[in-house]
């Protein structure tokens, strides 16, 4: 109660700020992407973007930055010119690119677990320990024909550990749905439209 009043008067105590800043900085310390991975990511990114616009490859800059509440990937890609309309490909990736929109996350930013005071270091460790899944998702984005992510596509450190958390959530939801359907005797989960869940 007293702490609450103090907070009301003074704002967040600096110890809390320290904790939050440490959590973030250690997260990005542990992310440590190898230069090869960043290069591969850059190449793949360019390949996709070049289908739509002409980019200045020499001016491309991909970095990871620590934001206030997350670690973000920043891609600075200068566009030289637009492609003629008839050369534009069909947006094959629509289904994949739509996924992040379900979460209230900024475009390329990796959304991190919320900075609750109680956020345990274990969460951070979890997120960092599960990088291959993210790499696989990145692989999907980079290679449009492959709709199903190959698990062994790129055994690499995670560019954005937060996505893993999201993926986990999604997977959990899917698993829960599947389980619920199994209970309700609906063997074919594909017939169940996404978003409507038997266990809801």
């Amino acid at each position: 109660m007293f702490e609450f009043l103090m907070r009301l008067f003074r704002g967040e105590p600096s110890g809390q700020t320290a904790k939050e800043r440490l959590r973030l900085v250690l997260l990005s310390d542990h992310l440590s992407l190898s230069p090869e991975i960043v290069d591969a990511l850059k190449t793949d990114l360019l390949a996709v973007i070049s289908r739509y616009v002409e980019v200045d490859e020499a001016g491309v800059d991909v970095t990871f930055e620590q934001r206030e509440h997350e670690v973000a990937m920043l891609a600075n890609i200068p566009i030289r010119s637009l492609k003629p309309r008839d050369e534009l490909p069909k947006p094959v990736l629509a289904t994949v690119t739509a996924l992040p929109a379900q979460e209230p996350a900024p475009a390329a930013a990796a959304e991190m677990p919320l900075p609750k005071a109680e956020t345990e270091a274990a969460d951070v460790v979890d997120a960092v320990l599960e990088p291959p899944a993210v790499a696989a998702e990145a692989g999907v984005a980079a290679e449009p024909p492959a709709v199903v992510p190959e698990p062994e596509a790129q055994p690499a450190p995670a560019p954005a550990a937060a996505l893993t958390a999201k993926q986990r959530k999604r997977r959990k939801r899917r698993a829960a749905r599947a389980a619920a359907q199994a209970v309700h005797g609906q063997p074919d989960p594909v017939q169940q439209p996404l978003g409507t869940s038997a266990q809801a």
Partner: protein
Amino acid sequence: MQEFASQVPAAPPDQKPLGRAIVVTSGKGGVGKTTTTANVGAALAAAGARVALIDADVGLRNLDLVLGLESRVRYHLLDVLEERVTLDDALVRDKRSEHLVLLAAAQAREKEDVDTERMTELVRALRERFDYVLIDSPAGIEQGFRNAAAGATEAIIVCMPEVSSVRDADRVVGLLPQTMRPQLIVNRVRPAMVRKGKMLSVEDVNAILRLPLLGVVLDEPALIVAANRGEPVSLDAGSATGSAYRDIARRIAGENVPVAEPAPEGGMFARIGAFFRGRR
């Protein structure tokens, strides 16, 4: 190893087991590695253990100063490693305890001058004669740190409740072999600030580092006074900080001494007072 062993008096007939070699390290400088080494070493020796302290901070020798032994230092670590003198010539006996000796760092040399393999052999030779070999590591994670850790079997991480110190401690733990089972001393804690939420608590620090907690030492003026005089505060029976170091020594020796987060709990009025006084 043979060479060092031959310089050393023969081990007692009752083949004692090798002593423990513990590196005291932190990554960041100025968090209290040397003070910790001196005080824990003195406390262990005061409790009857045979203790050798090695100042591995070549080029920035300080452990002798903290222990008040600077006038006794004749030879140093590199003199021994490079075989100019015998180990016994270079070991400085403590003024207060016959169980405590110091091997000082070379002041006019560089950390890169230390041969890692020879250093490992030296620590091993000391383990044959002493129950504890405490190695005061230099700051950083480069050669000096690696040399200090090379011969050690265990590690103590000294960390202040402060962002840069915690980050560096985290880095160092990642560099040490897991077999060293690093333990944590949270140093220079200010309970009043922790209580006001203005300093990371011991819990906060260890929620990140997740190491066995070896001890908590408060930030107290007594430490500076002790360093001024070159007297380890752990030998001051009346000092609370000294008692924290003695507790650490007992835990190292295997005694079960619980670690409590030191937070002198003020009453409601004390806290209201603190609220109006301290707005920083």
